[in-house]
């Protein structure tokens, strides 16, 4: 079974402060991990995926298989980063489809 845990429901930081949104996963295979973001009144959208090892909007996330973690980090928070952030684990199936399991989400609130 696959499971994604985000321990914090709400994270409040001041503008300019570092941000770390925690995510831990449980999966017996080789995980494909993602971060999705949902800004107020907008749809869920992919922020980044671990396989790309990219930085999007200043955010990065490193997969740590030893700690089964995929924490999202940004060195300096901006007000426009305020949103719901969901960690997700994806799997591809031989039947030709993919299945994504989401964490419960963390609301990031950046205080001006």
């Amino acid at each position, binding site marked *: 079974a696959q499971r994604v845990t985000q321990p914090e429901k709400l994270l409040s930081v001041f503008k300019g402060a570092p941000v770390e949104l925690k995510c831990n996963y449980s999966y017996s295979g080789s995980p494909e991990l993602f971060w999705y973001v949902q800004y107020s009144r907008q*749809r869920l959208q992919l922020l980044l995926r671990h396989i790309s090892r990219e930085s999007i909007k200043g955010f990065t996330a490193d997969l740590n298989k030893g700690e089964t973690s995929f924490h999202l980090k940004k060195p300096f928070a901006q007000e426009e980063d305020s949103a719901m952030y*969901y960690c997700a684990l994806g799997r591809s199936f031989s039947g030709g489809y993919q299945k994504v*399991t989401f964490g419960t989400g963390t609301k990031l609130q950046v205080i001006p």
Partner: protein
Amino acid sequence: EPEVTQTPSHQVTQMGQEVILRCVPISNHLYFYWYRQILGQKVEFLVSFYNNEISEKSEIFDDQFSVERPDGSNFTLKIRSTKLEDSAMYFCASTTSGTVLTDTQYFGPGTRLTVL
């Protein structure tokens, strides 16, 4: 940029009534999904659909639920006899392929279903 669309944005219904939630996936996508999110809870997978068949469904997706692609553009989720606990935000998503390695699920804006 093409987007997944969903209608209606908000549906209110009486318990026991049938509802149909509609989605228009991105036109060249082949794989379609429904998720739901009960208020305050996580986004949960309901069902995946490809080539006019269900690929996988979760335990939530019982006999009250059905999906259909009636006309080559719409993708619908039907709940035959709604229950109070069906109240949630329902998201449709689509992808071009079945692999998470290279492909992204594009989500619609969601339909908020309220069962009274």
